[in-house]
């Protein structure tokens, strides 16, 4: 689906995120080569258990992102609650307390836009189940920078609004089932 070798993956999800990510993260092998950055909308006052939860069920390393953390392959980084997660072009992560974007912090758009600045055509953006429109502009930015767009099939998503909006913003997106998204990610990460 993509001409340029993938260098990183960004994933955005909201309502239905747990189920959707459960079909993807545990399916990735321990030698998965790429870093994965994930924004899930979570209430700001909650201690997030997502990283702990998925670390237990996934062969890859799963952690909550820390500010100025160096980016490593084979690692999935969750944005912490109440902070935006951004990718820096020089290979590390940043957090920010900037204002909410589309009522959300962390914001999928903020992550996707910064990651597309950093990776350009080497980025794969994935929008999963969700009940709002965050991520549509971000996925557009991924495509505009030459990257690849993947959207969960809205017909089979727990909450279709977010993948619908992403599809509308990026008609060129690949619309896939969760299983096919997992298989696709495995394939691109295995390429030299």
């Amino acid at each position, binding site marked *: 689906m993509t001409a340029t070798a993938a260098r990183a993956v960004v994933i955005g999800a909201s309502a239905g995120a747990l189920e959707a990510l459960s079909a993807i993260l545990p399916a990735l092998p321990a030698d998965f080569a790429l870093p994965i950055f994930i924004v899930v909308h979570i209430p700001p006052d909650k201690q997030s258990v997502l990283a702990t939860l998925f670390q237990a069920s996934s062969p890859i390393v799963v952690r909550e992102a820390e500010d*100025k953390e*160096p980016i490593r392959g084979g690692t999935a980084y969750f944005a912490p609650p109440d902070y935006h997660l*951004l990718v820096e*072009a020089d290979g590390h992560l940043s957090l920010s307390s*900037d204002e909410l974007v589309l009522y959300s912090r962390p914001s999928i758009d*903020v992550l996707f836009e*910064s990651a597309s*600045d950093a990776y350009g055509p080497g980025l794969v953006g994935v929008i999963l189940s969700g009940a709002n429109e965050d991520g549509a502009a971000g996925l557009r930015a991924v495509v505009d*920078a030459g990257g690849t767009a993947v959207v969960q099939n809205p017909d089979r998503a727990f909450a279709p609004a977010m993948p619908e909006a992403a599809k509308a913003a990026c008609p060129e997106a690949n619309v896939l089932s969760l299983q096919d998204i997992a298989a696709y990610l495995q394939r691109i990460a295995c390429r030299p």
Partner: protein
Amino acid sequence: MNDPLEHEKVEDIEIRLLLDALYARYHYDFRHYAMASLKRRLRQAREQMGFESLSALQERLLHDPSMLPRLLGFLTVQVSEMFRDPSYFLAIRQKVVPHLRTYPSLKVWVAGCSAGEELYSLVILFREEGLEQRTIFYATDINQDALAQAEAGIFHLDRMQLFTENHRKSGGKSSLSDYYSAAYGRASFDKSLRRQVVFSDHSLVTDAVFGEMHLVSCRNVLIYFDRGLQDHALGLFKDSLIRKGFLGIGAKESLRFSSQSAAFSDFVREEKIYQRRAE
């Protein structure tokens, strides 16, 4: 210009030139801020200030000083909460305050105080703990407008519910409403809270050490810096603190990736409160 990647590179050049111009002309140094969020803010500034490009914004900025505060508004203003992360303030109250009590006089530095939420939180906490009268608070920021806002101590009334709830969770011993009067949708904090406060224009990038602090609280400021500048600011805090003085940073900030980490020990690890080592 139709190639998005080409555009990207041009924008990077424009950003570098704009930041150089801002420094050369007005001595505000954003050259070592974390680029991803700075870029986002610059894009917002360009759009909302109505310029075609960052170069056009730069041209105007160089010749028209009235552009400066507007741009700084985009680049620096943080929205915070009073007693944000109540568990941090609870830890200050329960674990740091007992140490602070042993000093006859105290200096507290709220670095990057923005509109003053963190400052007022600490002053109220110190008053509740009976330490306010022996303390001088230094509240610093590079943004003059934010400093003026902090000095005015006026917040939207609709934020008070959240602030009150945070204050209660932080172990507050009084009612937050004791400290402000409400009128016209605004909460105006009592001027007595500012008796012990010195407001000052200070840059963590270009200005020098502040003397003999017992506590430096600087939350969610360092995340906007790149790693080199974080090291610089943390060095400034280290040199500003007395031996065994305390440093509090944001919940998701860390000294782990900093070259200054050896100068500090964990004091309350889960709240990111550190203590300067005695050496």
